[in-house]
C-alpha cells in the first residue's frame, strides 16, 4: 500500500497539487485532468480531498474487463525540501495501479466504481487516466511546499518502509 492523501484539516484549498499533477502528466497546466483533486467550498471552507488509494482499493482493477489496470512496483523518492515524511528515508518501495493505455479501450467500466472519483476519461485520448504517483516522484507532494501546510502527503505501509532503498 502506497498512496497520496490530502488532509482536509491542513489543506488551504490552493489546488497547487492539481496544477502540478496536470503539468506533469499532460505537459501543460490543465487541472480538469488532474489525477487528484480537492473539493473546496469557498463559503464554508470545507475541503474534501480525492486521491487514489492504489492497491489498497483496486476496485477499478477488479472492474476492468480488459485487464488494462496493472500493478507496478515503484521506488518512491519524495524527500522534498519540506516533506513531513522524512522518517521514510530518501527512497522506499511501493506499488501503484497504472493504466496500460495500449490495452485500455476506454469502455468506462472503472469510472463508476471508483470511490473517490479519480479515475476518469482523458478528454482527448480514448482511455482512462489515473494517478501513478508520478512513478516515484509525486509532483502533488513536491508542490505542497508551504512548511506550515504540507497537506498532501504519502501514506506507506510497514513493508514499504522497511524495503531496502534503491531496489525495484
Amino acid at each position: 500500500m502506497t498512496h497520496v492523501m490530502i488532509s482536509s484539516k491542513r489543506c488551504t484549498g490552493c489546488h497547487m497539487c492539481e496544477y502540478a499533477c496536470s503539468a506533469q502528466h499532460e505537459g501543460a497546466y490543465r487541472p480538469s485532468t488532474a489525477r487528484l483533486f480537492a473539493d473546496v467550498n469557498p463559503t464554508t471552507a470545507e475541503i474534501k480531498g480525492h486521491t487514489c488509494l492504489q492497491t489498497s482499493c483496486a476496485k477499478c482493477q477488479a472492474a476492468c474487463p480488459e485487464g488494462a489496470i496493472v500493478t507496478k512496483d515503484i521506488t518512491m523518492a519524495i524527500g522534498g525540501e519540506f516533506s513531513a515524511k522524512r522518517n521514510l528515508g530518501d527512497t522506499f518501495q511501493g506499488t501503484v495501479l497504472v493504466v496500460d493505455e495500449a490495452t485500455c479501450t476506454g469502455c468506462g467500466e472503472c469510472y463508476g466504481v471508483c470511490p473517490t472519483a479519480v479515475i476518469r476519461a482523458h478528454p482527448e485520448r480514448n482511455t482512462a487516466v489515473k494517478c501513478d504517483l508520478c512513478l516515484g516522484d509525486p509532483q502533488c507532494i513536491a508542490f505542497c511546499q508551504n512548511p506550515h501546510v504540507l497537506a498532501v502527503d504519502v501514506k506507506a505501509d510497514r513493508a514499504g518502509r522497511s524495503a531496502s532503498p534503491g531496489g525495484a
Partner: protein
Amino acid sequence: MDFYQGRVLRIDLTEGSVAVVPLNMEWARQYIGGKGLLFRYLLNEVPPSAAPLSPDNPLMFFTGPFAGTGVTTCSRLVVGCKSPATGTILDSYVGGSFAPELKFAGYDALILTGTASQPTLVWINDDVVELRQADKYMGMGIAQLEETLRRDLDTNAKFMSNGPAGERLLPWACLSTDQYHKAGRGGAGALMGAKNVKSIAVRGTGSVSVGDAQAFLADLRRIHKDYILTPANLWAHEEGTLALVDMVQVAGAMPTRNWSQGQFEGNDNINSRAYMKVRLKKRACSQCAIGCRNFHVIGDARGEGPEFETVAICGANCGIGDAETLFRFNLACDDLGMDTISTGGVVAQAMDMTERGIHDFGMRFGDAEGYLAAPALIARGDGIGAELALGARELAARYGHPEIAMQVKNLELPGYDPRGTFGMSLAYATADRGGCHQRSYVQADEILGGSLPPDSLDGKAAVNIHWQNFTSVKYTGIWCEFWALELEEMRQLLRHVWDDDFSDDELMRIGERAWNLSRLFNIRQAVEADTVPARLIEPGGAFSSGPSAGRYIGADRFARGLAEYYELRGWDASGTPTEAKLDALGIDARV
C-alpha cells in the same frame, strides 16, 4: 504562444453578441499583462468624458501570463473601467480562482460593452458563451448566489458577481468571487449593475501551456523554495494582513474615530492576536503556496476576514473595539457586495456627524447596533442608508461640512493616516485611482519595518515614484502583495514567457509606462487635481496626543513635494506628461 491564450472574449450586451478576437501581442510584449495591458485597452476604448455608468464605459477583466500555471500568487485578476466612484482609471485586483478558470476556458481577457436590456447571467462554458435571463438571481447575496449558480450550472464553475449593493448602483459596490474575494475599490460593481449583469460564470477545462513543462516544474520548485517559502513571505501565512494592525497602531497612524486620533484604545481586541484565538483555518487563493487568508468562527458567524484595512477603517475608525461585532460587519459587507473601506469610512463619518451635532444619523462611535444595521441600509437604500449611499464627500457637502470627509478624488481613504506616515500624503494625492494605499508602499519604508523617517517629506517624491513604478510592473504579472519579490524573480519567471530577456531597467520602464498611461487617461477624463484633505496636512489637524502628536506636513511643504513629484516624473507643472517623456517611454498615445 505559451502562457498567453492569445484570445480576448468580447461581449456586446446591447447587441447580445459574442466575439473572440486576438489579443494584441504587440501590447502584450510592451505591457506583459494585468495592469499594463488593461490600461492600454482602456485608454484605447473609453471615450473622453464618458459617463461612468453609461453603455460607453466598458468593463474589462484581464489576467496575467502566469494565471493558470503553478506560479504562486499569479491567480490574481484585474477588473478595470472608468471608475464610477472617482471618474479616474480603475484597476481593482482580486484573488480566488476566477482568473485561472478564465484562462482554462481559453481567454486572457473578457471585455463587456454596452448594456443588457434585462437582468443577465453571462455563462462562459469553455467555447460556449451564453447570455441567460437572471431574474431569479436578482436580490441574492453572494453566498446564496454562488451556491445556487453552482447547482444550476456546474459545481466547478467560478463566478464574478454583484451583490444587492451593485444591483442598486452603489458607487462603491465591489465584485465578488469565491465569496470573500473582492475587486473592492472604485465601484466596478456599480458599473456591472448598470450593465444589468448579475454574475459572470466561467468553467474552463482546457490548458495553459508553458513550453517544456518538466523544465518549468523543476524551475518553479526551486523558485518556490528559494524565493517564496521564506520568512520574508511566510509571515503572510502565519498572520496575514492582521499583522499590520499593531504596527500601524504603534506608529500612531491608525485612523481612529473618523480620523480624529492616531491610536485606538480598543486595538488589542481587534488585532491579530484577538483573531488568532477564533481562527478555524488558513485559506489560500488558487495557485498560491503562501495562503494568507484567515477563516474565523465566532458563535454562529463563520467566514474569512476581516483583513487589516477593514480592522482599521471599520474597526478603529468607527470606535468598534470588539472582534465579533467587526467580524459580523465585515461578513455583511461581503455578502452585500460592498467595499469595506468606503463603507467604514462613510459609517465613521455619519457617527462623527452625529457626535458633533451636524446631523443625527442615530449612530455614534462604538455603537454596535446602528453600526451593524448600516451595511444593509446602505446597500438597499433604506432609511439613513439612502443618504449614506451618497458617499463621504457628497454626504459631508450636503450638510455644509466638506472638511469632515476623508477622501481623495471621492475615494474614501484606507488605513494609514499620513500624520503618522508623511509619505502617504503624496501617495494618496497622486494614486491613479484616487485615495489608495496599494500604489506606493512608502508606509512600509516609514512605519512597517523600514528606516525612513515617518515625519519628513524630504525625498519622498522619489520614493513614491519608485514604488508606483515597481508596483505597476508587479501588477502586470499579476503578482500579489504577499510575495515580496524583486525584479530578479520577475525576470527569472518572464524568461519562460518571452525569448528575449528583460533587464531590470526595462521592467521598471514597463511600470512607468503603465503609470503614464493612467495619467493620460485621467487627464482625458478631466479628473480633479491631486490633493489630500486639509485636515491631514495643516497645523490645525495635528494630533494632541500619541506618538505622532503635534506633527503636521503643512500646505507649503506638501505643495513643494507635489511639484517635486511632477518634475521627477517628467511631467509639467500641471501634472501632464511631456512629449519627451512619452517618447522616451515609447508611448504612442497622446492626451
